[in-house]
């Protein structure tokens, strides 16, 4: 297994306010998340704002340190990686961010942006780096001449290609893609999604694809993990997402996707309420207040992920009733 995550948590202490008030609340952004990613596999991580999906990605990249839990990546524990960060992690794990306008340094030429991870990693001559940069920039569909330009000379989609080139320059095993196409126009989104699929196939790179867009996740991911309020509530094959999802939250997310079909207008199954504060988590199941299936038990016992077979895991007391339809 390329990546094994066990019981990962990230808790933040938040001051209640007032200069003399030392009391704090605990915001449980990620609260006990376990999953794995195989080599060359794409795991989609889906959820709404406040679900903790981006925090998970940041912890894998060591941009945020976990409160507790363990991460084993490519056979090495994260403790080890933390001490040998550059050599061990940067060469194997990379990231592409959502906003192609904010994530590229506007004062650097494209050549330097793409070469940066290679230079930081060390061990390559100038000539080797120049050659490698030339290869990846063509791989993402730009031209070698473009390396002399600055980010502002490119459109959003082209900038995201530059971000992808930078990520693949070190030939990583794993890329965290944090909403990589959400800021792009629809006509350009498909180009970048196709590029990511091609690159994954050619280089056998595993992805953690973090997104709120179910249609794109269904398309690009092999498996999907759905997060709600800091927990994974369901994991299943992306081909099963549409018809075999069981968790009432997953089903509500699916029902809320506006279908581009004017003959199939549906808004009768609208999820009520909003995601509660991660500082005041409800007792029992975190989804209980919004759930149409909720019974007394859901307000007392917190459900854990249970195996439904064929890699399908659900955290719901009523999973069997719902799965039977």
């Amino acid at each position, binding site marked *: 297994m390329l990546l094994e995550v066990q019981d990962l948590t990230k808790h933040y202490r938040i001051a209640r306010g007032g200069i003399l008030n030392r009391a704090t609340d605990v915001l449980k952004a990620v609260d006990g998340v376990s999953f794995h990613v195989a080599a060359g596999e794409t795991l989609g991580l889906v959820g709404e704002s406040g679900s903790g999906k981006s925090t998970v990605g940041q912890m894998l990249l060591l941009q945020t340190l976990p409160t507790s839990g363990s991460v084993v990546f490519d056979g090495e524990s994260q403790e080890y990686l933390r001490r040998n960060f550059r050599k061990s992690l940067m060469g194997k794990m990379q990231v592409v961010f959502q906003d192609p306008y904010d994530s590229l340094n506007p004062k650097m030429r494209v050549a330097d942006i793409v070469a940066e991870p290679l230079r930081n990693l060390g061990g390559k001559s100038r000539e080797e780096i120049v050659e490698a940069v030339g290869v990846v920039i063509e791989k993402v569909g730009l031209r070698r001449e473009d390396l002399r330009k600055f980010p502002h000379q490119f*459109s959003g989609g082209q900038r995201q290609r530059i971000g992808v080139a930078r990520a693949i320059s070190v030939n990583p095993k794993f890329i965290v893609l944090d909403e990589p196409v959400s800021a792009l126009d*629809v006509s*350009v989104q498909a180009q970048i*999604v196709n590029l990511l699929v091609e690159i994954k196939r050619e280089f056998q790179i595993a992805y953690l694809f973090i997104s709120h867009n179910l249609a794109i996740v*269904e398309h690009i991911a092999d498996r999907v993990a759905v997060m709600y309020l800091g927990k994974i509530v369901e994991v299943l094959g992306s081909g099963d997402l549409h018809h075999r999802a069981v968790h009432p939250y997953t089903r509500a997310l699916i029902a809320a996707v506006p*279908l581009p079909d004017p003959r199939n207008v549906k808004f009768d199954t609208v999820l009520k309420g*909003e995601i509660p504060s991660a500082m005041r988590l409800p007792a029992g199941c975190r989804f209980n207040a919004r759930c149409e299936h909720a019974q007394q038990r859901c307000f007392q016992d917190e459900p854990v992920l249970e195996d439904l077979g064929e890699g399908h895991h659900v955290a719901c007391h009523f999973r069997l009733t719902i799965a039977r339809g």
Partner: protein
Amino acid sequence: MPHPEVVLEVDGLKTYFDTSRGLVKAVDGVSFSLHRGETLGIVGESGSGKSVTAFSLLRALPGLSGRTVAGRVMFHGENLLTLSEEQMRRIRGGRISMICQNPNTSLNPVFTIGEQLRETVAFHADGKLTDASVRERVLRWLGEVQLPAPEVQAKRYPFQMSGGMKQRVAIAMALICEPEILVADEPTTALDVTIQAQILRLLRGVRDRHGTSILFITHDLGVVAQLCDTVAVMYAGRVVEYNDIKALFDRPRHPYTAGLMRSNPVFGSRQDSLHAMEGQPPDLIALSKGCAFASRCPQAGPRCREEAPPKVAIDDRHFFVCWLKDGAGGTHAA
């Protein structure tokens, strides 16, 4: 479906911006009509001119560099573009109102929700309503947008609410004077999908109960299909296709519309690879002389790059703008 009465007629609207790189023709000759009770979707990507169109007809262009240089916006026999600023203020927020992508644009952070709604009602009622009836109306509309416990909400400040709740308040503020027309500029784009579904249902309910006409600006084909009756597709400052919602989805005529639909992944139908549209969105400063879409169009011929394409009628009201005589998939006109 008969649309009895035209409530807004936009004709040849042009809005240009002076920029350091040159003149940007953000809206370059846009015409459409909006009927009573109709929801017209204006669909386009960034730089298509869809939002500038909305701001132009309300004469609320942000910044100083933009100006509407031509066209008419007829509302009950009056051209909104030639009214005085005072007359326009009476219409804006009263008979025509607007909601934006970011609800903070319409809300003042230092007043409570209740105070802001009361002020809006009082301004447009011109002292004709008693304090009690203003208060009653505020609470009724907070309930209408499905905010729980309106009396409590009215005393809260915007920062005490979530994005979805603020957008509900912004909708209440836009609708509280019972406008004939609601201009909605990407009102659900910044919201989570479950909250988006709630807001869309809310807008549909309000429209059906009050007969409001809605001009709905969006980039999301799914949202358009779920809400609109008619669609105007914009590209590079112009309407390239204008059709009834079902006819548009059954058979998109403009190659841009067809490409947009194909490249949009549909949930529940996995494909091996997506049909990506070629190229990048147009640079409005360096538009070619022919069709603005020609460089990305899979069916572009030599003429498309030289001459502006003609308007082709679909029926007496609807059209597309293209050299292909039957539209996408068809052959070039002789």
